[in-house]
């Protein structure tokens, strides 16, 4: 089965054709935003990183930034730095060279301040837009797709309707040769048995237990019951009692396929099929990690309702109940609550989600894109000075 995508020079296929204005350090965030505002059609992000990272943290942040900038949904990228930072535009440009994006770099100190940097950046970004406009979409096989799955603002219905329906769509994509990310490591805690039974080999099963144990150790280090944070207050109000209960519902969105690989945050998988990404459950952090790892679309289930989007990839929102769909229809693309209303089955909603994914990766805008939602956050290991 085919979709319509943008084939990049390295062979990867984008589902969007963005020009990204990316600050490699927080000090360049406002200039990046000003440039993006001055050149309609470009997107920019802000983040607190780029300086002060120690050891493993530096590699972790660079992997996420580079993964985002070399993403096939990005036609061209303008990297903006200050001039004295740890992670420079030139460093990221070196990391992403060869992926097929047209790359420009800009330094605020070298240009002599905000006004001059914005003026130069505006010209560079306009040039990238001209080039991006030449790209044409073409048919590509769905085996070239990576879907990221996420759930936020869950209730107990998420595990009964939206998550299993997304699981049906995940199984369909994997049957077609594609790849699906299951993520949010805290929400694998308590569901290890379910996942390890489906692990490709003992190595993968061992990695699953390793990443959940590491996350569980964070609660031990903090000296608190993880329930002070997971499930969230809204989850608990929605009827979720413990993290284990939330997890057992959450993993259903990965479907029923064999777990082929466990990758680090923002790491690109080598295997196709179902892949687990070790990531915090924080919605925007998790989406950003999966996109940096190559996801060209995110399918996001919600029971309590969320407007969340992402800067360079479409986010398809699926509600677990009809009440929240009616209240937040402008934010939610598909209602799986009809399963509870007895109007539809999990299988038929799952097939509908799959068809929606194919439409969206072929260019149809999601509600989060239409409303301008571009939430972005990179996970930090906390090794900063």
């Amino acid at each position: 089965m085919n979709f319509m995508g943008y084939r990049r020079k390295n062979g990867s296929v984008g589902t969007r054709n963005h020009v990204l204005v990316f600050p490699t350090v927080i000090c360049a965030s406002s200039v990046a935003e000003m440039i993006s505002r001055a050149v309609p059609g470009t997107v920019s992000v802000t983040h607190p990183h780029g300086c002060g990272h120690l050891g493993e943290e530096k590699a972790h942040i660079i992997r996420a930034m580079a993964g985002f900038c070399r993403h096939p949904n990005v036609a061209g990228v303008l990297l903006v730095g200050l001039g004295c930072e740890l992670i420079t535009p030139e460093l990221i440009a070196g990391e992403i060279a060869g992926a097929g994006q047209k790359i420009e770099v800009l330094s605020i100190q070298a240009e002599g301040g905000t006004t001059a940097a914005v003026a130069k950046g505006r010209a560079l970004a306009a040039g990238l837009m001209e080039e991006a406009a030449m790209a044409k979409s073409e048919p590509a096989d769905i085996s070239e797709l990576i879907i990221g799955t996420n759930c936020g603002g869950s209730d107990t219905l998420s595990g009964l309707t939206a998550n299993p329906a997304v699981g049906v769509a995940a199984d369909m994509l994997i049957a077609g040769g594609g790849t699906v990310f299951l993520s949010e490591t805290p929400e694998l805690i308590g569901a290890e048995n379910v996942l390890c039974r489906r692990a490709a080999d003992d190595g993968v099963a061992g990695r699953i237990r390793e990443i959940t144990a590491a996350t569980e150790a964070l609660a031990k280090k903090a000296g608190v019951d993880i329930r002070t944070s997971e499930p969230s207050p809204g989850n608990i109000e929605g009827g979720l009692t413990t993290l284990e209960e939330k997890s057992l519902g959450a993993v259903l969105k990965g479907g029923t396929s064999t777990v082929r690989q466990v990758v680090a945050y923002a790491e690109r998988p080598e295997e196709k099929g179902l892949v687990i990404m070790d990531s915090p459950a924080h919605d925007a952090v998790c989406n950003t990690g999966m996109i940096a790892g190559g996801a060209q679309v995110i399918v996001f289930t919600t029971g309590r309702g969320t407007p969340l989007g992402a800067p360079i990839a479409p986010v398809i929102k699926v509600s677990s109940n009809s009440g929240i769909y009616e209240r937040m229809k402008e934010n939610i693309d598909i209602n799986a609550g009809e399963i509870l209303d007895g109007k539809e089955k999990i299988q038929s909603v799952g097939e509908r989600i799959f068809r929606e994914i194919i439409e969206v990766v072929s260019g149809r805008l999601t509600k989060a894109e239409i409303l301008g939602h571009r939430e972005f956050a990179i996970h930090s290991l906390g090794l900063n000075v």
Partner: protein
Amino acid sequence: MLMALVLHENDNVATALRPLNSGDGVGVEAAGNVIKIPLRQPIPFGHKFALRDIKAGERIIKYGETIGQATAGIKQGEHVHVHNVEGLRGRGDRP
């Protein structure tokens, strides 16, 4: 339309699919048989109630897996939530 759902034959809780009132006799399908559970408390939409009496310290089972442990005795038809169930994982508050 179903009023409550049991996900696995080993489960000792059901999930309310609509707001349920105290005194309601709720029919749930468990292991192929429909049993009627008289509710002792109102159960909010999406929340759980006990399918049978559960002793303090006993595991709470949903999806056929352990989701936590009862911190107090729970009677059939009682609300099962954070006031009478604790998680067993991520307990940094415990030695």
